[in-house]
């Protein structure tokens, strides 16, 4: 009888362990899927020198793959190249932004403003900072940009000097430097200063009071401050380049392009495009798209020029267990009274259960 029970319990445990192993990737974290644009009513062939792409805003950190709705009616086997890079097109002009953010104040004398960030591109060749010149005021002093490994580091990795007259009001100012290779997933710190500027002849930068750069911190005069500067990384090279055979692209299904996770991708504007230089019109693969601009966070491009429509695509981001647990605890801590009540109640039930089990065993022994 006991043996039977043991076997039964073992079997249940075995099934539970198998189930747990099966769903474990879902438990410790998984890719989440954003259905960015799912409609389609037209298609565009990709062949020869034609490059067809779409810009988009990443919805989260750790962008890990993209699925694009494609067609391959002639079962083309020609090489298809997928490129993903930081959006080189400024489709969201600062004026269009709903909120520009407050300014850090005039940057002059010993004052400086900076930001740490986790680089999301393999090759970093510049930083764009949202700056302002006080309603097109004529400022003529030099502004110095420093890039370091950390705020404590004394050595500049890159230094760029730009005259304040070149900084436009409420526009991104691009500070380009010689590329830093293998920069992805490394922390950097940049700051700007203008020792020769003085009040009335100085520029400023804009920042977001809320934390929009999850892996970075804003600095004022070398000390940490709330919010983040409004900035973008510049990279002339692809973040991702994938060569695939056209034969892998099936007809009228989402084709997935999987690449190493881009850790700091949240709110970053990316641009992906596909080319198939070896193909001709008869062996082209197709992108399916919707012929009106349904996707407002980006634009469709053909050969680098804006095109009427939105490609049909989905994006995927990895979310780990620690993030889920962290957010859950954060949410729970917003209602401390209930959290305490719930914990006490749960604890009391567990205590009673243990007491009952002990009592049951004692009674069994007594019998």
């Amino acid at each position: 009888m006991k043996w039977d029970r043991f076997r039964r319990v073992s079997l249940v445990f075995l099934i539970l362990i198998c189930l747990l192993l099966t769903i474990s990737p879902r438990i410790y974290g998984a890719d989440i899927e954003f259905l960015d644009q799912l409609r389609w009513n037209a298609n565009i062939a990709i062949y020869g020198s034609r490059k067809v792409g779409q810009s988009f805003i990443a919805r989260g950190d750790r962008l890990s793959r993209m699925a694009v709705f494609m067609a391959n009616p002639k079962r083309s086997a020609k090489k298809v190249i997928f490129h993903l890079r930081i959006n080189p097109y400024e489709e969201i002009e600062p004026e269009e932004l709903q909120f520009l953010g407050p300014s850090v104040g005039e940057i002059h004398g010993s004052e400086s403003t900076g930001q740490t960030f986790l680089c999301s591109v393999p090759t970093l060749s510049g930083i764009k900072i949202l700056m302002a010149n006080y309603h097109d005021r004529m400022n003529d002093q030099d502004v110095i940009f420093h890039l370091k490994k950390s705020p404590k580091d004394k050595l500049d990795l890159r230094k760029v000097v730009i005259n304040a007259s070149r900084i436009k009001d409420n526009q991104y100012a691009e500070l380009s430097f010689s590329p830093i290779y293998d920069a992805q997933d490394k922390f950097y710190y940049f700051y700007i200063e203008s020792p020769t500027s003085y009040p009335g002849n100085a520029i400023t930068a804009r920042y977001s009071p809320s934390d929009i750069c999850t892996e970075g911190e804003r600095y004022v005069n070398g000390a940490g401050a709330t919010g983040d500067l409004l900035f973008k990384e510049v990279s002339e090279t692809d973040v991702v380049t994938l060569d695939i055979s056209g034969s892998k692209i099936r007809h009228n299904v989402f084709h997935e392009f999987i690449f190493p996770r881009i850790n700091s991708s949240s709110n970053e504007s990316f641009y992906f495009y596909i080319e198939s230089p070896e193909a001709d019109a008869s062996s082209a693969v197709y992108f399916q798209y919707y012929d009106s601009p349904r996707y407002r966070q980006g634009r469709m491009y053909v050969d680098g020029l804006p095109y009427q429509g939105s490609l049909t695509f989905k994006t995927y981001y990895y979310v780990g267990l620690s993030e889920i647990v962290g957010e859950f605890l954060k949410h729970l801590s917003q209602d401390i009274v209930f959290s305490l009540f719930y914990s006490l109640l749960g604890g009391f039930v567990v205590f009673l259960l243990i007491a009952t089990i002990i009592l049951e065993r004692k009674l069994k022994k007594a019998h």
Partner: protein
Amino acid sequence: MIKKIFSGIIPLSYRKEPQVLITIVKWGLIGLLLRFIFMPITTHSDLLSVYGRAFYMIQQRQFSGMIPLLVHYFHTVFLIILNPFMPYSSEIWEWTSRSLGADERIWMNFVVHPNAYRTLFFLKVPYLLFDGLCALLLLHIFKDQKKGLRAFKFWMVNPVGIFALYIFGRFEIIPIFFILLSLFYVKKRKNILAVLLLGISIATKFYSLLFLLPFVFVVGNKTGERLKLLFLGLVPLLIMQILNMLSGVRSEVGTLAGSLFVDYLLAMRFKLPFVHDTVFIFVLGYALILLYVYYNSKFSFASLYKHMCIILLFLFATSFFHPHYFMWLSPFIAIQIAEDKKFIGLYTMQVLCLVIYSFQWDRSLAGYLFAPIYKFYFANVMSPFTFISEFYPAEKLVGIFRSILSAVSFWMIYQIFKSLVLHKSEIRQ
């Protein structure tokens, strides 16, 4: 001491032996713990919708027009009692000024509210009370300790109940409680009270109407008595109909006739190629069951619950249904399992099939339910349906398991029917 505490709520036969009492407490606590885990962290928009309408009724002082009206009255009372624990409640129900149903946007806005966990926990507490009462009723229905304990244990860990009430957050337990209470009084031969309780169940959820005729045929001996029982069974629904008619908004019976639920029942059919000739499978089967009950019934508790169980099994085998509807079967299966252990295995098969059947609702019955934990992740995590679609057409898999669910349901009908015949021959002997 334990005996004293439980003297009022647990029947005497279970209180004789402390070991039995301890077992009841143990399983009760296990069930409570399982329910507590899910209560604050999961929800479907349906829970918000029904309480939202209750809030609207309190605010607007408009106590008619909602269908089914009685279930909204229940939720109005719950909300009046719960409001002191939720001082921020007007913030939560702000959307009721624009809409009477919570859509996906309202649902996802709610889950990030700082007091979402507290709200969900308290909104489900009334269901927990009804749930507990149902478990106790099962003990009262059986005098045999072993059978009662088996039904009680099943009730406490029944995954379908936990899903429907605490994960999905549906009020299915209210009609179920009244059905169980009705069965309890049938056993005590208090037929009038029993049929009135069944009537309350009908007024809270229309599916219980399917049980009224079998109830009347089994419980009533003569035509006059049967007509009286039929009328009494419809009284609660008629009262609600009058209340709703007075407001001139909507008709309870009219809504029932035009509800989607009726369409679900009529979905499986044979269309004959002449004029409007159609054979509805559910209606055919239901009519056959009724005829059988009419010509073979003699008053017995077993005969009544078995026929009710057969009707529901036939419904799930032949009609489209939402996964939480499956909880309707729980009280009958609990009683059946208490009588015959082999139904545990069959029910487990049904539940496994039901899990896969529920995949067709995609994200709304997968990650969305857990969105209060972390919306960004659970509202966007790939649903099992999409995941399966990467390897095999998910709709086919769902169809396969749905067919197995139907097959198991038919097999259960056969088994119950067999036991019913046996039971009748025993009575005759």
